[in-house]
């Protein structure tokens, strides 16, 4: 069944063929909400194909080009495993959390340690969650990352459709009305070991109901002994629903090492007076493209979108954000910062869309980049699309190298050049890191940034 792909087929055809070769279990093994969409999804994908840079939304990132490998497309029959030691080594120090682990896009029951949950809450596998809460899936699955919706950007729906056709497993987080998770959820995503490049398509659904609260920290890591087979590709789709007065913090760290690529789609929808906070940190990877769409659909919502990308080597990182202000009296704030060296390419394309009638919106968007080497490149495209007059919206974008005057100042105070550079870069990243409401994560990020730019613990910044 794992379809071995043939050379003469086009990339898209390989996926179409793999879809037809799916086992009955893979096709029908889950709830109606998921399986009922598969056929339409693959048809939609067939019509659109992989995004190329002919599309405005993918102008600087050619996903189709990154897909030259022969992937194992179909889901593995059994969940691949990771050892307890591996998982323990990748936990955050001092973080008391409900721990969930996926390996190669499949939920690992053995390695997860969810522990006790408040009444009615669910933290665990997507496949299992679907069977346990079919009504929740009916109400929310495919509603936000909706490949069929015309309101969505058709340019963006190809990857979502492909995911919807193959989706089997991932995470499911469900926090019912008036329940607050006492501890954050720590989700560790590991690659499956092996030489064959895997095209994984995890699917995650987070439902935080009215007046509920949750915090999720996701880490995509690839430890040394478990490197990705070169060319591995992950096409992940996340959906989040936050009910009225709800609060959801979502942080994700992408650190999979060179050779692995990923395309993530995250659609979040939140209701009246809710807070949605998300941070995307990209530390490594070959090609990383993140599509983040947030729709504050009720009044008095607060949305925060932050990002930090540290590019090196041949890395290509592209963050596309869309904030759909569909309701009045909301606030959105985004800050994306990048440091690029070697031959890395950074892309930021943010769009704030204030719908007609959405008055009194305050929306801010900021993208700041530091380029350390001449071979690195930055493409920045912040957009404002505004159809209401009583608003305050602004965006800013800056790109430059490290300020020589600042380095000179530090050196004149007796600080060596290397350390001065590290201090300044640490300070640059700091306001993004500080937006994190989880101290163990903020501390870990500070160390990562410090270590990356050669200061280590001696940096004295943020510790």
């Amino acid at each position, binding site marked *: 069944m794992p379809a071995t792909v043939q050379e003469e087929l086009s990339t898209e055809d390989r996926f179409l063929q793999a879809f037809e070769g799916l086992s009955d279990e893979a096709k029908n093994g889950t709830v109606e909400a998921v399986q009922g969409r598969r056929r339409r999804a693959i048809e939609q994908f067939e019509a659109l194909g992989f995004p190329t840079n002919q599309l405005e939304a993918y102008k600087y990132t050619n996903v189709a080009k990154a897909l030259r490998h022969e992937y194992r497309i179909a889901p593995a029959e059994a969940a691949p495993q990771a050892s307890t030691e591996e998982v323990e080594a990748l936990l955050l120090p001092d973080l008391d959390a409900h721990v969930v682990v996926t390996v190669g896009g499949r939920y690992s029951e053995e390695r997860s340690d969810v522990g006790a949950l408040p009444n009615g809450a669910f933290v665990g596998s997507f496949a299992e969650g679907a069977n346990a809460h079919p009504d929740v899936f009916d109400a929310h699955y495919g509603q936000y990352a909706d490949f069929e919706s015309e309101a969505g950007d058709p340019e963006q729906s190809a990857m979502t459709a492909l995911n919807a056709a193959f989706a089997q497993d991932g995470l499911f987080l469900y926090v019912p009305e008036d329940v607050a998770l006492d501890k954050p959820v720590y989700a560790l995503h590991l690659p499956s070991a092996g030489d064959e490049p895997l095209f994984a398509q995890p699917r995650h659904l987070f439902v935080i109901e009215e007046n509920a609260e949750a915090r999720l920290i996701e880490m995509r890591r690839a430890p040394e002994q478990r490197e990705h087979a070169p060319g591995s590709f992950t096409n992940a789709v996340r959906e989040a629903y936050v009910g009225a007065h709800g609060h959801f913090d979502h942080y994700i760290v992408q650190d999979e090492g060179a050779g692995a690529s990923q395309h993530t789609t995250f659609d979040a929808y939140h209701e009246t007076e809710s807070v949605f906070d998300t941070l995307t940190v990209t530390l490594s990877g070959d090609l990383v493209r993140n599509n983040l769409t947030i729709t504050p659909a009720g009044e008095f919502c607060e949305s925060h979108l932050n990002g930090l990308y540290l590019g090196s080597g041949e890395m290509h990182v592209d963050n596309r954000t869309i904030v759909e202000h569909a309701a009045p009296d909301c606030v959105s704030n985004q800050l994306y910062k990048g440091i690029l060296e070697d031959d890395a390419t950074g892309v930021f394309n943010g769009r704030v869309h204030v719908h007609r009638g959405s008055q009194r919106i305050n929306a801010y968007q900021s993208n700041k980049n530091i380029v350390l080497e001449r071979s690195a490149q930055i493409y920045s495209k912040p957009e404002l699309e505004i159809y209401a007059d009583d608003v305050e*919206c*602004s965006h*800013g974008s*800056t*790109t430059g190298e490290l300020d020589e005057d600042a380095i000179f100042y530090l050196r004149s105070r007796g600080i060596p050049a290397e350390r001065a550079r590290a201090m300044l870069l640490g300070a640059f990243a700091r306001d993004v890191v500080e937006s994190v409401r989880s101290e163990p994560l903020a501390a870990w990020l500070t160390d990562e940034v410090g270590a990356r730019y050669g200061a280590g613990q001696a940096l004295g910044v943020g510790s």
Partner: protein
Amino acid sequence: MSTAETEYLQAKADQEYEHGWTTDIESDTVEPGLDEETVRLISAKKDEPEWLLEWRLKAYRYFDRLTDERDFYPDWAHLDYDEPDFQNMSYYSAPKEKAQYDSMDEVPQELLDTFERLGIPLEEQKALTGVAVDAVMDSVSVATTFQEKLEEAGVLFMSFGEAVQEHPDLVRENMGSVVPYTDNLYAALNSAVFSDGSFVYVPEGVTCPMELSTYFRINEQGTGQFERTLIVAEEGSYVSYMEGCTAPMRKENQLHAAVVEIIAEEDAEVKYSTIQNWYPGNPETGEGGVFNLVTKRGICKGDRAKISWTQLETGSAVTQKYPSVILKGDDSVGEFYSVAFTKGHQQADTGTKMTHIGENTKSTIISKGISAGVAENSYRGLVKINEGAENARNFSQCDSLLIGEECGAHTFPYIEVGNPSAKVEHEATTSKVGEDQMFYCHQRGLGEEEALKLIVNGFCKEILAELPMEFAVEAKELLAIELEGSVG
């Protein structure tokens, strides 16, 4: 929104186009339709040399290939309009009495009346402002003044057609070098069927003794106008060129697809200013109105060259233009100052492209968009720093002001940085007129409209200050007219 502001809006939307009328001058118009024959006919009518005909034909064939494709109309801009039918347009129209006037007395009275109604009496302009006016009535230049004075300085300022006859080498060498006919659909169309336009040549070391200005008008019913302007500024020269336009009221949409090319050699400076106030269409329905789809680009060829675009766009149903600068020479400078005012059903998608190639190149972009009624106003701009553009510097600021609940204001900047020594800053804001600002004005005894006028004027001040003195007066007047009727 306060009542006064709402009424202001209402009044603004109700306002009729001031310059709506048609002049009755006998015309020599080619039948609608476009094929190779049309191109040959235009070329023959203008008595053009063989090489130019060949060039037109190449452009036409490229255009023809383009239009064979499906969805050949460029549709990426934030604009929504009926695409022009190229076979349903007439491509040539010239006033019949095509005489070379030696003095103003010989110019037909009708034409002089035309300018009078526009508020631009030629004689008065001559006397008061010292501006040479190359009046383009439809497509062919009919009145040229101050020629002698310019000749003294060695500056060539004439219609494109004349330049082709008198200075073919200069034209041949430079036309199409900044905007090739392959640039886009409308540039290809213009290259194939351009009727006339202006040509300016400033020799080495010469500072042009006066501001050059051309008034374009679209006059013939159903005729697209395809001007072509070419400005060549040799080493160390300076010229300021002004372009202002109005058009008569009419029903069907009119296409205006001009091409402007500027070449600035070492140490040369070119300043290009535009006031555009063409018929914006029916303010209630959006019917009619001019499609202003223009390609404007300049190149700073030599070191320390400077090109500056200033524009005040208040007219046209659809405006799509991106006056651009290619900063090739080291230390060269590009500037773009723009006010775009849209109301009624107007749509504008305008901005600039700054391409940094040389070292220490600088560009400044200041764009102010004002949107009222159900208008859509977009800023779209590209700042591209090439790998070799060491120490390039860009500053962009794009502010949008929204007046009314149903308009839209959008900002789409593209920033591409390929050299780390570059410093690129972009900033944009979108908001309505601040209540605190209004309050402050009220508190000082200013009425609703006066306050709004003051604030809007302040909002645009930076740009208007960039216009040459002669133009600034007209620009201010135009903005005041746009803002009139706002007294609550």
